[in-house]
């Protein structure tokens, strides 16, 4: 969940009230935030909701807190002045990255804190709400360095050159994708296209290559910058508008002037930013039903006003207008949560529940428990290993044919030790013994756990089975002993078993067998010398593995 760094002093300025750290800790809950760390004036807030990009900045958090602590309630009103600036969208971007929204911000006074907040919230909006720049990529430019109107169009890879951010020389579009760190990171977003989107001014001066990188000359904002151009590209007008509203409303919170921009698509023209509130209806009855709180319509309306809604009773329902920087309300329950947050989670009393239902353990869990008890009774030490394993252990070390052995296999392993799900338990126990050779013998261990096999008939194409494995190691770990263990396990489970010829190559010929027990299978026997050696085991070792 996004971490937002804020300064307590800056927060006081934005809220317009003296706030102690304790006050802030208390009220930041209303912004779905929790204080993670404090370092002097600097506070790290964890914002829990990834669908609330409007909370990813100090300005946004302060806006929520004001709703609770000051008279500033309801949907925030931002003045948008009309400008003559337009962005002309060429049809060449229609299939690549079709949507854009933009705004001009004038008379900005950027201090250190404003700059940090702007850059951080831009980053977080792109990463979380923008799905790693795919759905929304934000660019902020020094407007004084650009001449209107702006153009959004696609160019062939070699047809355009500019100096990308943090570079000193010009690169063409292909070079940027192949060589610039951001190009490499986001190249996949433009995969398969023969032309790439460019955002440039009327003179052909490049502002950026969305969604990859800004220009070093025009797309770099400093404390000296006076006027800003903010732009968002993506695939859905609704999404880019929301992202733009998030960025612009935060800047408006600092008192800067917002100007609109005309977006001229080949077939229509729209004006952004659009701060018209959105609407949803909630039934007071549903609020009571979901929350379990006895709230009347008036209380609900008040709580919503604090939560920056414009709410009123209308024809038996509650009409809720919510700010245009929010796009997280999919269902009235989302409003209900805001009512409860506004009410304060700390004030909601837990309620005991009396349901006339009976608990029940699953049969496989019961069986595993009994089997573990039998094993403990046999003097064996229980162990627990991972279900993920490697082919080295599951195939090579136990003398199987790598080509014939199929596994449930990971597509994206991050370690060589965990690439497949185990099909057998005993290699895991042999490995365990190999790591404990320096302790007292005999070593007698067991595990009850799952193994996974491919199974085209199962709905997950995998059959998951519970197995018991026992390994004994040290002087006298012979077939007769491990068979005695098998006898004891079978007897205590009330099962009969039969032994047949062994086909497991890891076990000593003539001193091993496959087991048929209660309609299930298993194996028993002495581990042969080659396999002992491959695990680095020096003591004679015998194993028993049964499906349970």
């Amino acid at each position, binding site marked *: *969940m996004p971490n937002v760094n804020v300064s307590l002093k800056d927060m006081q300025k934005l809220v317009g009230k003296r706030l102690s750290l304790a006050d802030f800790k208390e009220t930041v809950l209303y912004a*779905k935030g929790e204080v993670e760390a404090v370092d002097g004036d600097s506070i790290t807030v964890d914002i*829990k909701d990834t669908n609330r990009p409007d909370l990813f900045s100090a300005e946004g958090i302060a806006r929520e807190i004001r709703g609770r602590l000051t008279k500033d309630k309801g949907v925030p009103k931002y003045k948008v002045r009309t400008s003559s600036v337009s962005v002309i969208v060429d049809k060449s971007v229609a299939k690549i990255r079709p949507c854009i929204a933009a705004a001009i911000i004038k008379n900005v006074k950027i201090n250190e804190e404003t700059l940090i907040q702007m850059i951080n919230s831009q980053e977080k909006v792109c990463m979380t709400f923008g799905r790693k720049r795919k*759905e929304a990529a934000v660019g902020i430019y020094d407007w004084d360095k650009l001449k209107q109107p702006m153009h959004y169009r696609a160019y062939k890879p070699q047809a355009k050159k500019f100096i990308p951010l943090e570079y000193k020389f010009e690169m063409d579009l292909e070079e940027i994708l192949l060589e610039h760190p951001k190009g490499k990171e986001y190249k996949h977003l433009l995969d398969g296209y023969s032309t790439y989107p460019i955002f440039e001014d009327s003179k052909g001066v490049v502002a950026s290559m969305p969604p990859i990188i800004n220009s070093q000359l025009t797309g770099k904002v400093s404390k000296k910058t006076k006027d800003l151009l903010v732009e968002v590209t993506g695939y859905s007008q609704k999404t880019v508008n929301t992202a733009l509203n998030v960025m612009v409303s935060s800047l408006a919170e600092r008192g800067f002037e917002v100007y609109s921009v005309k977006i001229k698509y080949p077939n229509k023209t729209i004006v952004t930013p659009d701060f018209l509130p959105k609407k949803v209806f909630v039934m007071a009855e549903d609020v009571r*039903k*979901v*929350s*379990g*709180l006895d709230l009347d319509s008036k209380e609900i309306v008040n709580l919503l006003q604090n939560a920056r809604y414009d709410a009123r009773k209308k024809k038996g329902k509650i009409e809720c207008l919510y700010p245009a920087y929010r796009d997280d309300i*999919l269902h009235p*329950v*989302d409003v*209900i*949560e805001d009512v409860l*947050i506004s009410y304060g*989670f*700390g004030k*909601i009393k*837990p*309620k*005991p*529940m009396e349901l*006339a*239902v*009976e*608990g*029940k*353990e*699953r049969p496989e*869990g019961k069986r595993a428990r009994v089997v*573990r*008890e039998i*094993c*403990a*009774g*046999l003097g*064996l*030490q*229980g*162990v*627990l290993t991972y279900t*993920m394993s490697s082919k080295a252990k599951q195939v090579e070390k136990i003398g199987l044919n790598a080509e014939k052995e199929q596994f*449930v296999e*990971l*597509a*994206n*392993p*991050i*370690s060589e030790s965990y690439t497949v*799900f185990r099909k057998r338990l005993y290699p895991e126990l042999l490995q365990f013994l190999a*790591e*404990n050779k320096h*302790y007292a013998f005999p070593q*007698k*261990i067991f595990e009850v756990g799952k193994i996974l096999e*491919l199974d085209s008939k199962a*709905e*997950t*194409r995998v059959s*998951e089975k519970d197995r018991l494995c026992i390994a004994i190691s040290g002087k006298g770990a012979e077939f007769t002993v491990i068979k005695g263990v098998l006898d004891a396990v079978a007897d205590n489970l009330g099962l009969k078993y039969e032994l047949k010829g062994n086909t497991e190559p890891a076990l000593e010929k003539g001193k091993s067998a496959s087991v048929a027990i209660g309609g299930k299978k298993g194996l028993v026997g002495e581990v042969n010398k080659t396999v002992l050696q491959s695990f680095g085991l020096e003591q004679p070792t015998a194993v028993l593995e049964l499906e349970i």
Partner: protein
Amino acid sequence: MELSQKVESLSEIEVTCLKALDLKELKGLDEIAGSARIPIDSVRRALEWLREKNLVEVVEEKDERLVLTAIGKSSLRKALPERLFVEALVELGGRGSLDQVRKKSQLNRPEFNVAMGIAKRNAWISITPGKETVLELTGLEKELLDGEYALEKVLKAVSEESRQLNEKALKEALKRTLVEAVMSVEKRARLNKEGEMALGMVGKVKKRSYNVHGAVPKIFIGKKQPYAQFLEQLRQKLVNLGFKEMKERLITQEFYNFDVLFQPQNHPARSWTDTYQLKQPKFGKLPDKKVVAKVKAAHENGGNTGSRGWGYKWSEEIASRLMPMAHGTAADSRQLVEGIEVPGKYFVINRCFRPDVVDASHLVEFNQFDGFIVGEGINFRHLLGILEKVAIEVGGADEVKFFPDYYPFTEPSVQLSAKHPKLGWIELAGGGVLRPEVVKPLGINVGAIAWGMGIDRLAMLKLGIKDIRYLFARDLKWLRKSKMVVE
């Protein structure tokens, strides 16, 4: 102590040892162990006891021995650099340039320089400087080739523990750390007067009383793995609280892990870096077409749920992809799809998987405890109630607090922080009221609440573990010593 008392206190081994000793002659430990037929360690211990009782005299003799060092051993086995140097020259016909000799001898630069210095000092070679320095054997190298080289002879003599050593060569061997001197202490013992008298009284005095304080051999009992036992006990508790256990699975369709839970298909949490994916098998079956169609509608436009949905094109192919379970909630969603009793209380303890770097606080395999409750009139306050109960009764918490939280499948969502007697305030569980987009497509129209709890931290606490890797401990000694958890 009276002599008779001393005799009475003698153990069998002490008596055996006394019998093997002589009044005059000092005997070494080996000799005593041999004649008494007991292990040398027992002799050593018995002599200590006997010395304390002042029945024997023990003499310690320090001895200095020469031994080969690791380099010395390998030089003896593989030959000294100077030999390799000379042999290389011999192979070159007795004459060669610096480079030729170095290549032929395969010595590294420092070894080569040492070898050349020695060869020159012994006048085995002559060196003619020039554009290319030329080395030539002088004939005196015969001493080396005939096996008469003093240093080699010393190494061999040391390895054979011979005492006849060429002093000059030994000095060089010590300087070149081919040989080192080690100190050893040798103990020898004999009876003293009192010991002899004691020996005479053995058997005539009443036998030594049994020592109940003595150490006894260690017994390793059979027992369950501590974490496995913890999980069993947790299961029992939940069953006692009226919960039905759901089936644990390791592999699931994304449908249950994400789609039923209203996680949009383009969400970063579904990406390669955040969850494991399978190379094989790749796709599983989806349930009944009607259920799939309703889940699809919930994602795309809300369907019958009263939601506007996420507004994108939902893909059946993505939903049928298989993956290792990323969270226990996937068991909830499968149960909700496969059918539930209303009212009903369900739980699962499920092995889950995430691609993470394993360290003291992260595992790639871990267990999650998840549960849900459905019933007419079930609401958010009931959720707080059950979370509080579980935190106190299962988690051992003293006090709880609730905070807003976010999950794609619940709204309102809550995080429970619990005050633990040892850990202080910790985030223990998360949950919420299941979203209409989750339950309505499955035909559930009553209140439904769900939660999940990381139980690994609780287990660590209960088992006294600081490093999470010990939940799957690979250390037999630790497992053998681990305490049985009572509860």
